[in-house]
């Protein structure tokens, strides 16, 4: 008989999540709330100057209050929420060459990320299998991989920009570089450490090179390859945002920088959140895909 989890067990954690969110928003709001403007002790001249500078405005009753449109400290959650509503409301509106709706920006980032990551992964898996299948090649290539692996993908950017002379392709290549090495290293390792039994069976059955590769080697190394792809995925995702910022390519990462240039801090916070959600969505999709290729070891 299956035991039904209690209401607490099932929904408790989610309730706690909501509670944490609520608490966070409350603290954020409390910390960023500015005190009411106090006109006492200020001369008429001072107030006029402040009004002229845009620090304060007169409300409907004729009292001075802080100008809500002037940037002052970190904006509270309500401001960011307001900003998000406007942005999401015009998600698919293009206002100019560099002012595309958030929907477009996210789409550009995903496209850029996917093309760089896919190309990088294909090259990395091929290279990894090639190296992993032969012990001498594995030993020979290993030092190069070890040196190339820790280089930040952004470090390649000036060289790439100089070589291809095009920011669009440079951004994709940065993602490509970011997704290369972890997959190469893991694939080579995975192929190199396949259980001998499987190779023995392949040898007994007199499988051809290609058949052995596709029916035994790649499936057996799949968990290691997926683990490598997962690391690559993370580093590529981290690389895509600064690549867009530095190259000025339209995307979710670029939005962060544009909003900073506009001195719109609510916009910056909104852009950061967008990057987080895009990353989460991509990672989730990848996880579902990866589950298809793993198996339970006997």
């Amino acid at each position, binding site marked *: 008989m299956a035991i039904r989890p209690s209401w607490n067990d099932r929904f408790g954690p989610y309730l706690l999540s909501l509670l944490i969110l609520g608490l966070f928003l409350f603290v954020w709001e409390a910390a960023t709330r500015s005190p009411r403007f106090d006109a006492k002790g200020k001369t008429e001249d001072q107030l006029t100057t402040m009004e002229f500078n845009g620090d304060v405005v007169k409300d409907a009753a004729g009292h001075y209050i802080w100008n809500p449109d002037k940037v002052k400290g970190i904006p509270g959650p309500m401001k960011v929420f307001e900003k998000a509503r406007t942005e999401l409301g015009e998600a698919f509106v293009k206002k100019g060459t560099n002012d595309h709706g958030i929907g477009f920006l996210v789409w550009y980032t995903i496209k850029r990320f996917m093309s760089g990551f896919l190309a990088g992964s294909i090259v990395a898996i091929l290279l990894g299998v090639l190296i992993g299948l032969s012990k001498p090649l594995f030993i020979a290539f290993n030092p190069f991989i070890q040196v190339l692996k820790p280089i930040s993908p952004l470090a390649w950017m000036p060289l790439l920009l100089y070589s291809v002379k095009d920011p669009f392709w440079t951004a994709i290549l940065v993602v490509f570089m970011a997704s290369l090495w972890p997959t190469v290293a893991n694939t080579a390792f995975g192929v190199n450490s396949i259980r001998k*039994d499987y190779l*023995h*069976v392949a*040898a*007994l059955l*007199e499988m051809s090179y290609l058949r052995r590769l596709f*029916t035994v080697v790649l*499936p*057996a190394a799949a968990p290691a390859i997926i683990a490598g792809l997962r690391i690559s995925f993370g580093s590529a995702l981290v690389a895509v945002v600064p690549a867009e910022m530095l190259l000025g390519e339209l995307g979710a990462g670029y939005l962060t920088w544009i909003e900073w240039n506009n001195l719109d801090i609510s916009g910056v916070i909104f852009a950061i959140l967008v990057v987080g959600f895009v990353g989460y969505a991509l990672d989730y999709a990848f996880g579902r895909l990866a589950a298809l290729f793993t198996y*339970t070891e006997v």
Partner: protein
Amino acid sequence: MSFLKVDHVSKQYPVLDDKAKKGESFVVFRDVTFEIRKGEFLTMIGHSGCGKSTLLNIIAGFDQSSTGGVILEGREITKPGIDRMVVFQSFALMPWLTAFDNVRIAVRQAHPDWSPEQIHDWTQKYINMMNLHGAERKRPAFLSGGMRQRVGLARAFAVEPKVLLLDEPFAQIDALTRGGIQEELVRMWNATRNTVFMVTHDVDEAILLSDRIALMTNGPEAELAEIIDVTIPRPRTRAELIDSPDYVRIRNHILHFLVKGAKKSKHSGKDSPAAPATETKPALQPTP
């Protein structure tokens, strides 16, 4: 002409110890010679370390002999091939394939000219013969040890190899399940009459299944001590076996050898009851 001939096979490894003299080597076994007739079931018994699994690997082609060689139907064995299927102690099933597909890829390799339907039907036949019906779509991780080895046996038999090599095939299966599979193996072997070389620790298993049993002395420098005929008529079942006087005699003989003889002959072998023998000794001396 003999079918499978193991001809003066020795296996040694260079000693990698710092103190070892140059050229010194560690001899696992030396000068093992015997023949297996076509359709015969020969089992090799010996303590751990006598190199019986190494010998099986040499016959399979996974390992090379240091001296001597193995000849199958007049040709020397140099590499693994589909004419010698191995049933592994560790099952060696591909965990990403279903039970059915594990057998199917072997059939496909054995018969590259067959249509997919033929391959499918042939696979199904052997799946059914090993009582795996209903488990075809399961992956090895979701099968019990006994079921896994049934898949391993189905894979090996389905190829119809010239020689079947069983490397302690039931060592990882619990005692209760083991009996059932052993009887299935007997049934399968009776139906196909494959030539089988098996390596095991289990004396009862050897007597139940074999035509002849080869006894190895203890390693290192193990030698083939003798080969005994299992005179018990077939078909055999475990239930009948227990009451058979031949069974008791053979079992005692082997156990005596394993407890005493295997050790003694390591030093000399002249006056030992288990002197190295390359021929089949006829019957056993009746126990007093």
